[in-house]
């Protein structure tokens, strides 16, 4: 019995008892509503939760964005039309944030446009490299996998404080530099190095998750494909580009979409690590939304909601294009 079937068996027996009671009920249900409606039955619980706890809040947010004051209850908020959108989009010159009425919104947008591609590329590149190394014929794979996954378990605040604490002028990294006779470097004071460390720390914290998914994808590639390639004495790079990458494509797409979406949502780690600084060099969209909507009294829910909806529209378009492109290439 292989390990996998043992697990399937174990999980099977765990589920067996309640399942036996449920099955006749479900069969009856199927007779009642017909097989055509069964997919809706399967969908219903999840869809209901999504509508109630995700989509409804978004609609409340849309309402917020057209109303003013710092009141919480929608009924207490006066209608102000598109005022919030107007202030956000009010710019003398869209390429120069300092001419905009809400300059920090545009700086955040600009930073996000640089941060997201950089971070996603680094994330997927490193996660893929790690997954390939772990997929090799190596000793202690479990240990290594654990090590790479470990940071995923830490809460964002802890990740940020740990690294802030490592990187600050009196941190352990500078402590090591000093003991090597080098000058300490103020890592988070310069815009470029702060940006680098923002990317580094977020990749550090999340790459384990993507590594695991990619590793699963790699292990799903049948060994015989590689054996065949070995016969043809193809070199490593050729095997990678001609066999691994094409076969990994569906998994890579999953990883890519997840990574982009979560990269756009990057917030907690950087909020604690740099606070968006120095100046506004690492200020990203969600932090901007958080600050105007929550961190500063009086809370401006309306403006925060408007900004988040603009962000949401951009993301939605992006994802739809992605899905369309991938669907097209799958069919073709």
């Amino acid at each position: 019995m292989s390990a996998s079937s043992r697990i399937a068996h174990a999980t099977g027996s765990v589920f067996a008892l309640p399942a036996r009671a449920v099955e006749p009920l479900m069969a009856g249900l199927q007779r009642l509503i017909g097989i055509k409606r069964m997919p809706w039955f399967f969908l219903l619980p999840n869809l209901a939760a999504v509508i109630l706890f995700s989509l409804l809040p978004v609609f409340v947010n849309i309402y917020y964005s057209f109303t003013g004051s710092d009141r919480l209850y929608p009924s207490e908020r006066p209608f102000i039309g598109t005022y919030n959108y107007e202030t956000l989009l009010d710019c003398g010159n869209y390429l120069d944030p300092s001419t905009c009425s809400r300059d920090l919104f545009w700086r955040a947008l600009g930073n996000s446009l640089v941060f997201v591609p950089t971070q996603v590329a680094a994330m997927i590149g490193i996660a893929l490299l790690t997954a390939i190394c772990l997929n090799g014929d190596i000793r202690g794979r479990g240990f290594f996998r654990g090590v790479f996954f470990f940071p995923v378990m830490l809460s964002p605040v802890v990740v940020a404080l740990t690294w802030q604490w490592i990187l600050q002028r009196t941190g352990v990294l500078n402590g090591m530099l000093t003991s090597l006779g080098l000058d300490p470097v103020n890592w988070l004071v310069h815009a470029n190095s702060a940006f680098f460390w923002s990317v580094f720390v977020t990749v550090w914290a999340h790459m384990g998750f993507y590594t695991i998914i990619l590793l699963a994808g790699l292990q799903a590639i049948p060994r015989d494909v590689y054996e065949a390639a070995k016969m043809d004495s193809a070199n490593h790079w050729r095997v990678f580009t001609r066999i691994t990458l094409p076969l990994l494509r569906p998994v890579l797409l999953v990883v890519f979409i997840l990574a982009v979406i979560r990269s756009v949502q990057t917030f907690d780690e950087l909020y604690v690590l740099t606070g968006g600084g120095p100046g506004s060099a690492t200020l990203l969209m969600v932090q901007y939304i958080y600050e105007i909507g929550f961190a500063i009294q009086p809370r401006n829910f309306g403006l925060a909601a408007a900004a988040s909806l603009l962000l949401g529209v951009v993301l939605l378009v992006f994802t739809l294009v992605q899905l369309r492109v991938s669907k097209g290439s799958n069919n073709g």
Partner: protein
Amino acid sequence: MADLSLARSEGGVRALLLGRRGRGKVTLSDILTYGYLLLGVLVMFAPVAWVVLSSFKTPAALQEFPPTLLPYSTEQVVVEGFDQTLPLFNVTTESGEVVQLAQIRRVGLNAQMIDPANPQAGRITVPVANAAPVRKVHFAVENYSQLLSSSGSDIWRFVFNSLFITVAATVITLIMNSMAAFALSKYRFRGEGLALVAILSTLMIPATVVLVPTYLIVAQLGLVNNLWGVILPTVATPTGVFLLRQYMLTIPDELIEAARMDHASEWRIFWRIILPLSSPALAVVAIFSILSRWNDFLLPLVVLNRREVFTLQLALASYQDENVVRYEQLLAMTTLTALPLAFAFIFLQRYITSGIASTGIK
């Protein structure tokens, strides 16, 4: 069993050095692989280890620069005639020899010291530059005991609340997400695309942004200060549906057709065929759900305001006030709350490993 592993480990060092499980020569790619992985261990693990080590430092030791690897504290001695213990110093005398003295008080550049072995000899004035504190490794367990005492005897209640939320949310998430994923991957029906977009579009909503409306809805449902008020809003994870759907797409439809031939109901097909085959993806979703629910902070913070429903994360969050962050407590809390996760991971790792390994459809 022991014999077996002994036999296996014979030449294990050699095999480890050579980097191959079987025989064979070391290739450049092996060296690169191990080099990369060891670098990974350093970069990924060292900061975590540093957090754990630092959680045993006293506040004073935490503020030190350059920081020491191990937690140290100055040794204290009891000297006759003094109520409080006094810190011990290694003092270099003018003749160059080193003696141990206890410091009574420091004034500017000089310190008043006393010989703990011979307190009758009276006070000695020593220039500060010639004195170095005697330090020993000291694990400041008090960081932990303070933290635990701040949550009082209720600690098990908080652990229970956290566990309840984590387990209930994860079980519901797995069932609901896999049902939805099944519908979205194995059926063609009108509205499928719309439902998929509706669920996936919520991926794009940062939780921070909808916190306030979410609270309003929870409040309308009367679930404030109720553990279900934290569980229900989090169960419909779009990531879970997405991962499971992508995975289920790879399960051949022939299996389902064959089962239908045998007059299996749709539920039976889902429960008996699709679910077991999806166990690798389920394992990933489970891990992810456990991690997020256990570490959840913002939603519980807003929804749960009575101590009897606090989670561990909330109860231990007393490391901060308006102006001060108490790092020693924060670090202890981190270590303490990450510990169960680490164990869970070590335990589940085998399952994930083999689960993921079985992904190859054979």
